Structure formats: structure tokens, C-alpha cells
């Protein structure tokens, strides 16, 4: 109990530092640019790709903070974004940042708690790492959205687990669709209500049925077509490719690509 308390205190302290920094970043444009370029650009780009975000989708960002970077990137992709935060100061600062970038009509900012927000009708939800009570938010969002809806959230992995609470897939009420290793001890998870998952989430030795394959010049010819059975043989070190077997043919597949292949448990 005491350990959890300590962890919570530490978490709050780190959170204040990060938030303070983001306030500064919101005030001074070039600081914001450098900060996000180093810490978030690649990460958010990966998440957007992983979640299969298409222009025109309705998206929410929970815990946008004083500099709503994910929301900005999503808006630039052509999404209609609702960004919420339970801190009124953060929302006020975020308004300034958004209007400076001229994205007011694409990003709707609201002061609200993520556990009470209504996610009905949205297609993707992005939850920040520093949001508290992420479990309840996930449950609510999964319930509100349809089977096609997907939620992306960040988990600590490795050393960052010492400071942040993390969720493992068996604690969640939803299916982990795919995950992606990020820098600085983080990982991004994409979850959904339906039973489908990506090939990258499969266990070694599992035989699965391919449901959907992204447009790619080589994948169909190598046997990755809907309706085919695929067996995951293993994965390489250093976040290397997966080895998959289709029709006795062994293919090495990059993780990011495997994240986009939808599969279903085959019997």
C-alpha cells in the first residue's frame, strides 16, 4: 500500500514537471516545436498509422494538456477532433495554441473529465499517458463506441514502470488490437471491442485466419490474403520482424506492417 502511495506521489511530481514544461512550450512557439519534435513527433505519427486513422474521422483526445500535440497532428490529417482535459488552465492555454495555429474549426476544446465524457459516435480515441483513471476511461469509451471504434493509449514499459501505472491486456475489458514500442520506455497500445487483432499481437505458434490486409505490392503474392491461414513462428530480437508461415512459405514481416494485418483466432 505504501509502495503504491509513493508511486502515486512520484507520479504526481513528474506530472507537474511535464505540465509546467508544456505550459512554457505553449507560450514560446519555438520551444514547443523543438520539444514536440524530439519527444512526440515519431510517436504520434506511429500511433496514427497504427490506429488506421482516415481523414474525416471523428476523434477524441483525452488529457490534451496545455499543448494538444496529438490533437493538432490529427487535425492536420483531416480529422474532426474533440480535445478534453480536466484542468481548466490547461484548456485555456491549449485554446491559445490552437488559435495561433489557426485550427479552431478543426479542434473543439472542452473542459471535462474523461470518465464522464460521451464517446458515442466517435471512431478513434487517444488517451494520454498522464491521464489518471485510464481504466475507467477505456471501459467507458469501449462501451460508447461501436465495434469499429479503437482506442489508443500509452503504457510505460521497462524502467518507466517504476513511476507510472501500467495496464496489461488481461485487466482490460477489451481486446488489444496491436501495440508498438516507443522510445523512452513507452509503448502505445491500440484496443477495440471486437475479437479481431493484428498479426503482431499473435502468440508464437498460434494459427490465425487473415481478415484484412493493407494495400501492399508484395503481401498478396506472398500469401497474405483474406481467408488464408497464417502461423506465427516467432519474432526477432531488438524489435525486429516477425516470422510468419503461410502455405509452407516463411516470410519476415516488419512489426509496423504486421500491426496493420487483421486476423482472427482460427481453429
Amino acid at each position: 500500500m505504501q509502495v503504491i502511495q509513493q508511486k502515486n506521489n512520484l507520479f504526481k511530481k513528474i506530472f507537474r514537471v511535464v505540465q509546467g514544461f508544456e505550459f512554457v512550450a505553449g507560450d514560446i512557439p519555438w520551444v514547443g516545436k523543438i520539444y514536440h519534435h524530439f519527444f512526440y513527433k515519431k510517436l504520434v505519427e506511429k500511433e496514427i498509422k497504427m490506429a488506421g486513422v482516415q481523414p474525416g474521422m471523428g476523434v477524441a483526445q483525452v488529457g490534451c494538456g496545455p499543448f494538444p500535440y496529438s490533437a493538432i497532428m490529427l487535425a492536420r490529417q483531416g480529422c474532426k477532433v474533440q480535445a478534453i482535459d480536466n484542468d481548466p488552465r490547461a484548456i485555456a492555454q491549449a485554446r491559445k495554441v490552437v488559435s495561433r495555429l489557426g485550427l479552431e474549426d478543426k479542434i473543439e476544446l472542452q473542459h471535462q473529465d474523461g470518465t464522464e465524457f460521451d464517446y458515442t459516435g466517435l471512431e478513434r480515441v487517444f488517451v494520454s499517458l498522464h491521464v489518471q483513471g485510464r481504466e475507467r476511461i477505456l471501459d467507458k469509451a469501449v462501451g460508447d463506441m461501436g465495434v469499429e471504434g479503437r482506442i489508443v493509449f500509452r503504457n510505460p514499459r521497462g524502467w518507466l514502470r517504476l513511476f507510472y501505472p501500467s495496464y496489461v491486456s488481461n485487466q482490460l475489458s477489451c481486446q488489444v488490437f496491436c501495440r508498438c514500442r516507443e522510445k523512452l520506455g513507452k509503448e502505445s497500445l491500440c484496443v477495440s471491442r471486437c475479437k479481431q487483432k493484428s498479426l503482431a499481437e499473435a502468440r508464437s505458434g498460434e494459427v490465425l485466419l487473415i481478415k484484412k490486409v493493407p494495400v501492399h505490392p508484395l503481401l498478396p503474392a506472398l500469401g497474405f490474403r483474406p481467408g488464408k491461414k497464417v502461423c506465427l513462428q516467432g519474432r526477432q530480437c531488438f524489435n525486429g520482424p516477425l516470422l510468419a508461415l503461410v502455405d509452407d512459405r516463411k516470410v519476415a514481416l516488419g512489426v509496423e506492417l504486421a500491426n496493420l494485418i487483421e486476423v482472427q483466432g482460427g481453429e
Partner: protein
Amino acid sequence: MEERGRRKRRGHRCGQFENTSFSEGKAILLMGPPNVGKSVFFNYFTGLEASVANYVGTTVEFSRGRIVENREDYDLIDVPGTYTLDATNPAEKVALKMLQENPQGIICVLDAGSLESGLYLLLQLLQFQVPIVAAINRIDLARERGYIVDIEELEKELGIPVIATVALNHEGLEEVRERIFKTAPPSKTLPATSSERWHFAESLTRRALVREGEKGESLRQKWDGWLTGPWPGLPLALIILGFIFSMIIGLGMGMRQYLLLPFFRELIFPPLTAGVEMIIPPGIIRNILIGDYGFLIKGLEWPLALVFPYVLSFYLGLSVLEDSGYLPRFGVLLDGLMARIGLRGSNIIPLLLGYGCAIPGILGTRALESRKERVMISTMIALAVPCISQSGAFFALLAEVSIIVVLALFLFSVAAMFVAGLVMDRIIPGERMETVLEIPELLVPRPRLLGRKIFMRIKGYIFNGALPMVMAVGIASLIYETRLLVYLGTALSPLIEQWLRLPSEAAVPLILGIVRRELAVLPLVEMGLNPVQLFVGAVVALFYVPCIAVLATLAREFSLKLAVVILGVTVGTAFLLGGILARVLGLFV
């Protein structure tokens, strides 16, 4: 044999991607998915030597040879392998362009192990209304897995001749050759859209591929599991590489020490020296021929007794790795690490080819779709991958001091490549390509094929490596004997003596190194350098000008501008690192 010899003399032309024209109606195309053995067919039919290896994308430029039928000559063209004809990569674009030039016929080679996607390609080819013969290759491997291919069913459904082959054993090849000239264009109507084609290919494969009882896990599959996964694949990779590396050095050194050096020093040089001394009076000309840099002495000893043994042992090692199908597995093991510098695991293959000679390494990048990847690998090869001639020279220079210095030099070069990769990944725009790589079957290399392959590479070395080296040694002896060296030494002394702390004679390797990589090293062998100077000299030579032929290749493949930039970067790195190392190592030794 007579027939073969005649065909051989007809010559062999290779083309680049841009130049694909051939005499209309006289060409027969060899097509099929990558790594099904098209080049083995080509070599058998033409008696030529297109390169063959067990990984995807060996043939990066088409090869053209002659095939004679009824006293008429036909061009046989070995087209780079394509999974489909959708023109999404360089190989597919070449293939499409060739198809549009009215070929006389197509030999479509399919792999019995991946019949389905092969059939899809075949269906795409059939719409071109050209006579086609389909060869189902590697029937033996399918049989080993417990499958029988129903050839009659395929012939009935496709309406074209289908022949079962095992190309490496020459089984069925004569039949393919007979049938291709007697076949009419296809008449059957077959599906025309992508999804219909896949549907047709799937159902036909189900009927034509008959399972003949269960077979247990073969030894091949066991080894495949061991070598491909991270455990025990990674430690095995270390052992395999360590073994190959020591084999190259050990075998090379042994041959040099006990066979070639005694042979030249005791049997060739004494009569040669005596002969020259009899004919030519003492003076400059005699010195040029048999003096310190004697054209006849060093010109024979360096390329033939010093470098040649390593060329032989290196190509033995490389050819075994290539033909066994281990290289793609090694690449996949390293893919995660290569991703850190924006590359893919399969890029390890052109890099390793670069350890033989930079030119095949750079040409080997042609099949890559991304220009960023091509530029990065070519620059890394030009900067820090020593070709085998230079490596041989390093072994001669450093191995006698200590084998650890040799190892240190190679680790240094790998580190430099990694840094270069990191930098280039940042500054060259472009995304990293996702890894999608088919892993070929493991095969036991066949001694006959290995022998031929090594022979071809040795031949290449003699004509493109050893002869220019002899000429360059001639130039060196001229510089040395005409006292040009003294002037050069004085002119370059700030750079050589003060910055690099090497003796003034080191001007010779710096001049010669522009022409060829190993000549930046070899003259150092007999200068009696101390260990620090040896290492500094070796590092400068490693990064120095990547030899004239390589610069020309870079300019042709990319642009003159890039070649100049690479030249500047390599020379700059060489002197910068050399000077720093001379000071840093000087502190310790």
C-alpha cells in the same frame, strides 16, 4: 561439348535497366518469381555464367545470351524475378517493358513450393498472347515436404505445356528447350481481374498439389528453425561468422605462407632477376623492373602471392553463405538493429558483397525501391567497407603484428558504418521501408556449382583486379626510381609527417591509393612502421579514396555530384580520424 563450346563463344551481354531493347520477335524471356532458379536455366541453355545465389533479387540486371534452334539464333533473356506484374518496383518495370516488345516466347519458371502465387504471375503473363512454357521447378523439395504436383491437371486447366524440373540436376531442362519452340500462343480464356486470378490460382493449386501422406519434420526444417529464430540463431550467427572470418584469414595466410610466397620467391623471382640482370645494365630501368618497387617483383608478388589467396578464401566463404540461403536469415536476425539506422536487414547482402568488391555491392542495391536506401548503402560501402584486395593487404600488414589489431580494425570499420548510417538516416529525406522478405529454403551448396562460381569470381579478380594492380605498381616504381617521390614527400610532408606522423615514403600509398584501395596499404608493408603508425596507416587507407572504378560506378548509378560528395567525405574522414588516432594512440603506446 562441342555445341556448348560454340555457344560459349557467342558472348554475353549484360544490360542495365534503362536499355532493354532487343531484336523484335527473336527473344525468349525467362520469367518467374524471385529466387526460383531462372538463372540456373539461363546458364544451362546458354552455357554462360549469370550469377546464381539463394536469396531474393540476385539478378538485378537482365542477362542476355544466345540459344540456337534450327540454325537460327534467339536471344534468351534472364529477366529479374517478379512476384507480380504490377510495376511497383524496378524489376517489375523491366519485366513489363520487355513483355511489350513482342518476345518470341516465354519460359515461366515457378516454384513447386509456392505454386499459388507463381500461378498468379503465370495468369498475368498468359494475357500477353505469347507462347509460354511453364516449368515447375524444385519438384524435389516439394516431394520432400510430402507433395506431388499433378502436371496433367495443370496442363489441362492452363492450356499450355507444363514441365516438372529440378534445374540444379538439369532434370527436365531439355524438354523445356524442345517445347518452347513448338508452342502456339495460349488459346484458353482465363480470368482477367486480380481477384478472379487469385481465386483461380487457389482452386487450381488445391487440385494440382496432392498431399502424399504426412512427413515428419525434416532435418532441413530443424536447421531452419535453429538458424532463423533469435535463439539459438543469434549465437549460431556469431559462431558462423567467426568461423567464416577465421577460415578466410587462416586459409589465405596458409596458402600465402606455405605455397605462394615460397613458389614466387624461390622458383620465379631468382631466374627472373638473373635474366633481367643479364639483359639490362644497372641503372634506372633495371631498378624499375627489379628494384625496391620492382615492377616485375612487386607487380607479381602483390596481386598473386599476397592478395590472391585471400580472394580465393573469401569467395569460398561468401559463395557457401550465398548458396545455402543463410544470408537472408542473417539479415532478418539483424533487422531490428539495422532499423536503428533506417535500413532493413536484407541490406546486409549488398554490404557483404561489398567486402568482396564495392562494385557488385553497389550494383546489388539496384533492386531496392528506395533511393535513400541505395544512397546510404553505397556510401557506407564506399566509406568503410574494405574490398577483399584491401582486406588481404590489411592481413598482410597487421596480422603479423597481432590478429587482435586486425579484428580491431574491422570493428572500427563497422562502428564507422553505424555512425555514417545514423547521420545519413537523419539528413537524407525519406521513410524507412518496411521489411517484407521471403526466406528461402536452406540448401546444401553443391560443390560443382560452388567451384564454377568461385572460378568466375577469380577470373573477374585476375582481369579487373590483378592487371590494374600490376600497372599501378609500374607507376609506383617510376615514381620511386625517378626521385619524384622525394618531391612528393616534401610537398605532402605537412600532411604525412606532421599530421599523420608517418614517414615521408607514405606519399606513395597515398598517391597509389587513388587508383586502387589495396595500394593504399601494400607499400606500408615494407616500411618498418611502429604499431601506432601501422594502425593509423591502416585507418587512413580504410577510409581513403574508394578506388577510381568505384567512383565511376557511383557517378553512373547516381550522379557525378554524389560521387564527388562521397569522395570528399571519405578523404576528409580518413585524414581527420588518422590524425586524431595518431595523437590519441601515441599517448598510450
